[in-house]
């Protein structure tokens, strides 16, 4: 079946590649671009480990085709740190122990970043709702909520 030439801006850098129609965005990110910070968890659009920002909105990249991202902006966890300095959300997860095994963390970070870009001062319920499509099996979410609150304060 036909291949497609796509160009995607990843973390600010333009990247072009020829991809098969059926290539999933998460495989494009991990295997074609070798950005392995984005994880594959359930692979059925439930767990959110593969969450990246597509034109600023969190999406589950296991359930988006790479061709659907053609011409768009994608942000992954690798794009959060700037000039050797952690993003406030990353700092929050470190300071508040927002992770244990770390598997859900890249997706959790991206969803949290998108939340704080939309709402600078979310309450606990809004944070819990925003991350309700991202599953964590370690923390019980308590410290993740604290981490997002930490970041919100830092970003204000």
């Amino acid at each position: 079946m036909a291949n497609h030439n796509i160009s995607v801006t990843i973390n600010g850098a333009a990247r072009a590649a020829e991809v098969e129609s059926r290539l999933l965005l998460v495989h494009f990110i991990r295997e074609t671009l070798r950005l392995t910070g984005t994880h594959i968890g359930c692979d059925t659009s439930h767990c959110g480990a593969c969450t990246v920002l597509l034109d600023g909105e969190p999406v589950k990249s296991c359930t988006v085709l790479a061709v659907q991202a053609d011409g768009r902006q994608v942000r992954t966890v690798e794009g959060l740190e700037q000039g050797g300095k952690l993003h406030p959300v990353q700092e929050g997860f470190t300071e508040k122990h927002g992770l244990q095994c770390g598997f859900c963390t890249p997706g959790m970070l991206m969803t949290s970043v998108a939340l704080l870009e939309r709402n600078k001062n979310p309450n606990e319920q809004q944070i819990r709702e925003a991350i309700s499509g991202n599953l964590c099996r370690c923390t019980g979410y308590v410290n993740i909520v604290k981490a997002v609150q930490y970041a919100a304060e830092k970003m204000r």
Partner: protein
Amino acid sequence: MIPAAFDYHRPASLDEATALLARFGDGAKVLSGGMSLLPLLKLRLGAVEHLVDIGRIAGLEYIKEEGGVLRIGGGTRQATLDRSELIGGKYAILRDAVPLIADPVVRNRATVGGNLANGDPANDLPAVMIALGATFVARGCKGERSIAANQFYKGLFSTALAQDEILTEVRVPVPAGRSGGAYFKLKRKVGDFASAAAAVQLTLDAKGAIENAAIALTNAGPTPLELTDAARLLAGKAPDEKLFADVARLAAEKSSPSADRRGSVEYKRDMARVLVTRALRKAVERAGG
């Protein structure tokens, strides 16, 4: 998981899209948000030769009220609908339903048209649109036609859409004064389909009796289930708990859910009864009764 190979098309207009659908016939499927279709292809529960992506066609995402009709573009993402100030109030049933669909990240991609046109009886918006008395606009090669929501669902994953048709718009008549609606859904966790769910929309007359009502259930059979007998039982009567209980019992009898990991047939029927009762109570309260 990787889907079986297919070809991908990205038409720039609806005319181009319907022409592609006509050309490829049964081998083609419309890709909107992809939140149902892509998991299905990945799990290889289905295969397709051609995906026709309507996601870049301009002008399919809008929510507006004009001429006594709420018009929702088929390409409207559920997150956009969720943030619209137009839902809620007269359309409280939509305010109830939208945040219960899948999860917030999925709702950033999932579209109203996809949820309705997919024909999955587990989807939430079909029952809601049936209760609201909505019509769907189908656009094909030969032009547009309207299909009533309660005539749209023909069987499991089977709808009234022809192979070359795309659901481009939902039209909801603005509810009359003293109307109210509600959607109650029982699910095991965020992101799950309904174990049972009930949609109610009704209008009260000047004396506070129920002038007309519509009830529909999600995941209670091969198609979204409109309960005309149960709704007829409400007409002309003053709303009270006894009436709600009678109607809810009838609704549960008419429902025909399948047993699965969400529960037995008996359990789901009883949950439908409970949820219809709650939805009736809330709908009457919102109607000012």
